[in-house]
C-alpha cells in the first residue's frame, strides 16, 4: 500500500483521541492501511512520499484473535518508530495467518530526523477501546459505491 493516491483510511471523531477507520478488500489490506494512517498522523506522509524509500524492515506480530493481532501489529510498528525512527510509507502484509494468529509484513520508509522532518501529533499507544473489525462475504457493486467495504476496521489510538 503506498501512501497518498486514494488512501483507504479516515480519521473519525473522538473527544480526546483519534479513531482510525481503515478498509480494503481483505483484512491484510485493511491492517496495512491502518498502519499508514497511524504514521500519517505523526508526520505528514505526503512529505515522505517524495523522498525515496531507503529503509526496509520485516515486521512480525502475533496474538490470539483478530483484535489482539491488530493491537500487536500496530504496537510493533509504533515501537519501531519510537526506537528506530522509521516512518513507514509503504506497508505490505505478506502473511496473515489465522491458525497461529500471526502476521508477517514488509515495510518500507524513511528515517525521521529530529529538527528536519515535519512533526505531526505523537501517538502514545494503541487501545482496544471500541475496536471493531468487520469482514463481509461477497458484496455487490452497489454496496461498494455506497462505501461498504469487504473488510474494515476501527481502532482508537491514544494521543
Amino acid at each position, binding site marked *: 500500500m503506498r501512501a497518498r493516491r486514494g488512501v483507504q483510511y479516515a480519521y473519525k471523531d473522538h473527544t480526546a483521541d483519534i479513531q482510525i477507520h481503515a478498509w480494503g478488500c481483505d483484512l491484510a489490506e485493511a491492517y496495512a492501511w491502518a498502519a499508514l494512517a497511524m504514521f500519517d498522523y505523526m508526520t505528514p506522509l505526503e512529505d515522505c512520499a517524495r523522498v525515496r524509500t531507503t529503509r526496509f524492515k520485516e515486521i512480525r506480530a502475533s496474538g490470539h484473535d483478530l483484535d489482539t493481532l491488530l493491537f500487536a501489529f500496530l504496537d510493533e510498528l509504533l515501537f519501531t518508530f519510537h526506537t528506530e525512527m522509521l516512518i513507514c510509507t509503504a506497508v505490505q502484509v505478506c502473511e496473515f495467518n489465522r491458525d497461529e494468529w500471526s502476521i508477517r509484513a514488509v515495510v518500507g520508509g524513511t528515517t525521521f530526523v529530529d529538527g528536519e522532518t515535519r512533526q*505531526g*501529533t505523537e501517538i502514545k499507544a494503541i487501545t482496544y477501546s471500541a475496536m471493531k473489525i468487520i469482514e463481509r462475504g461477497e458484496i455487490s457493486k452497489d454496496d461498494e459505491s455506497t462505501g461498504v467495504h469487504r473488510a474494515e476496521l476501527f481502532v482508537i489510538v491514544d494521543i
Partner: protein
Amino acid sequence: MTTGADADARRTYDEERAYVSAVSPTKLVVAKGFVPNMRVPGEIYVNERLRELVLDELRAYCDEDRRGGGYSPAVKQIANVAALPGVVRASIALPDVHSGYGFAIGNVAAFDCGDDDAIVSPGGVGFDINCGVRLLRTNLTEAEVGPVKEALAQSLFDHIPVGVGSRGIIPTSPAALEAALEMGMDWSLREGYAWAEDKEHTEEYGRMLNADPSKVSARAKKRGLPQMGTLGAGNHYAEIQVVDEIYDEFAAKKMGIDRVGQICIMIHSGSRGLGHQVATDSLTAMERAMERDGIEVNDRQLACAKISSQEGQDYLAAMACAANYAWVNRSSMTFLCRQAFAKMFGKPPDELDMHVVYDVSHNIAKFEEHIVDGEMKTLLVHRKGSTRAFPPHHPLIPVDYQYTGQPVLIGGTMGTCSYILTGTEKGMRDTFGSTCHGAGRARSRNKSRHVLQYEDVLAKLKTKGIAIRVASPKLVMEEAPESYKDVTEVVNTCHDAGISKKCVKLRPIAVVKG
C-alpha cells in the same frame, strides 16, 4: 470474556437518561442497572452547564447508527468501572470528565485491598503513567519578564526538546536509566539535576519505593532511553505564567506566592514512551490472566488483574518505575528551565527563587488509607485524569502545607488560565481526596482541525499577548482553547462542591508545546 454493552438491547436516550439523576446542583448519580453488573453507583460532579456536555455525549451515542465506529460516552465508561470487582462506594467523575478508553478521563475509583477479588487496572491509570503538573515560582514580576518574553519563550523552546520524535539532550546510558527507574528524583538529586527541596514538594517525594526495574520490559526501556528529559506532544506544555488573582492569601503565602504579577513556570508532562509501553505490555499480560481467573468486564480496554496476582503485582512494580521516570523527566525539564532563566537574567536560579511549589500526578494508582462506612480501609485508589487533593493535617503532605492542605495544580489550555487549589476535608470524605485535573476536552481533534484556522488561533493568542512556540502546526488547532471545556467552570464546580478550594489563578504569557 467481555459482556459488551453493545450486546444488550439498545435503549433510547430517554430510557438511558432515566438512570441519571441530579442529587445536588453539582452532582449527578448514575443508578445501578445503567450497564450490566454494576456493584456501586456512579457519581459525576458537574454543574448545570457542564452537565449538558456530559449528556450530549450520551445523546450522540444513542442517536448514532452503530454500523461501525462509534465509542462509549463517559457516562457509560464511569458505569463500567462501577462494575469492576472490589470497587467501593462509587465510581466518581470530576467536572472535566470526558470519554477516554477503559476508564473515562477524569474518573476516580478505589478498590478494597482487604477483598481478595479486588483488582488493579492499567486502564484506570492510563497510558501516560504519572502524567502530571509541576509549578515553579520565581521572584520576578511581569514588568521584568514581559519585555523579554519572546526571547524567553524561544530560549525555553531551544532548551527543552518537544514534539513527536524529539530526543533528550541530557545524556543517559542504560545503566543510568535503570537507576532512574528505581530511584526517581533521588537519582536526579544525585546527578545534580534537582535540588533537595524539590523532593519535599513532590507527591511521594518523587520516588515510589515499590519500583522494580526488572519488571519493566526491554521494549519499554528501549523506548524510554532516548526520551528522558523530553516534554512530549499532545496536551503537554511548558508555560510562563503570571499570578492573576489570589483567593486565599494565607495558603498562597505558604507556597511562596505573595503578589499579583509574580512569575511562575508550569510544566505538564509524563512518562513518555516508557510509560506508554509499560501500560501496553501489562494490557496484553492481563488479557491472559483474566481468562484464567474468570474476571468479567464490560469493556476490553478495562483489562485488569487481582491485586494479589502475579500480573497485578508486576504491573504495580512497573507502574512505580514509570512514575519515577516521569518525576525524573519533570526534574530534568525543571533543570533546563532554571538554566534558561538564569542565562536570560544573568543570575543563578536560586537567586531567582526558582523553587518547586508542588508537583502533582494526575494519572496514577496508589495505596491509601480511607474511611469507608465508618471503617478505616486500605484502598488502591486509581486516579485517571484526576488529582490527589489531601486536606490540611494529612500525614502524607509536606510540613509546609500542613495548615493549608495539599496544593493542587490545574493546568488550563493553551492561552487560558490555570489554577492552584488546595485539598479539603470534604474531598477526603466524598471523593477519596481527589479533584479535577484540567479543562477536559469538549470538542474532538478532528472537528477542531476542520473548524479552526491555524492563523486565527495564533492571532487570537497574540492579541492576548501570549508568546507561543509550537513544533506542530496541526496541534495548534487541536489544542486550541475552543476545543476544551471552560477551566474556570470546572474549577468553580470543584470549589462549590467543596472537594477542593480555590487559591490562586494564573494566566500564561508564553507557551512552549509539542
